[in-house]
């Protein structure tokens, strides 16, 4: 196995970490939509943090190893259309994902605040924050764009 083979493995493993985290966040998005209880919302926090770690590892791993491969392999260049498209889509997915994360983190922080202040009953404000339409829209865009990256990587338009 060459060094580039190892980098390719790292690239694909990172992509799986990123997409796996997106799936994890979808499950949490659906789970918190059904609750208005601070304790239930707050309990999702540690699982969300696992997703945050996977997203960070996946995002950094895919871009670093992907650019490395585009430079190292004779068949491809960093300025190939499909490579540039992947980098742009990666940035869009990351930014929209970050915005979704901010929305849902606000809800989790609110749940913790309510718990600390002893308000453990249902909260209409928390329910509204858990059902954030901005967060849902941003996560949907982030996921669709990530799917577009996968399509771009497999079909490699222009190659």
């Amino acid at each position: 196995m060459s060094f580039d083979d190892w980098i390719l493995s790292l690239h694909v493993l990172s992509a799986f970490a990123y997409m796996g985290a997106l799936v994890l966040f979808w499950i949490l998005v659906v789970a918190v939509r059904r609750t208005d209880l601070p304790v239930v919302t707050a309990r999702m926090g540690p699982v969300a943090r696992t997703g945050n770690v996977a997203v960070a590892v996946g995002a950094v791993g895919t871009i670093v190893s992907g650019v490395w491969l585009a430079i190292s392999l004779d068949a491809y260049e960093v300025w190939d259309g499909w490579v540039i498209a992947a980098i742009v889509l990666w940035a869009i997915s990351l930014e929209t994902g970050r915005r979704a994360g901010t929305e849902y983190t606000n809800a989790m922080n609110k749940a913790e605040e309510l718990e600390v202040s002893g308000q453990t009953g249902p909260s209409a404000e928390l329910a509204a924050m858990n059902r954030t339409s901005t967060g849902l829209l941003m996560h949907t865009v982030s996921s669709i764009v990530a799917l577009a990256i996968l399509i771009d990587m497999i079909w490699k338009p222009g190659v």
Partner: protein
Amino acid sequence: MTFLAEIRPDEWNFPLFLHVLGAMILVGGMLTGASALVLARGDARLLRLGYWSLLAVGLPGWILMWVGANWIYAREGLDEEPIASVWVGIGFVVAELGLLLFLISLVVGGIGVYRLRAGKGTGLLKATMVISIVLLVAYAVAIWAMTAKPD
């Protein structure tokens, strides 16, 4: 995928897309299930979330992954020949032996969730958690084998 693109025919693209997408959904469901089961510390809601992530997300992901893989394999007529490469062998072992383990974990976990309702212990869901972690590691090895093709 980059090297594979150099040698694979274009008509593999769609089945390959299904295969990889299914595998990503499977890994996502497994990651969520394992995380929720590890971090639950006896919390019934999180234990249920972990179990349902495996059943409702991980299992459909496995099916999509398997359909994509076998579509390519059958199209090339490889299903009538012995497995010729180490990486394909690793893929089959992890997918099919992994499915057996996965199904055992779902049955055991299902009983565990039922027992949870009756206020009994969480031991069976701990078994599901351990199997999920083992499967996550096995999937990482399979992804490495699929991309690096060690033979």
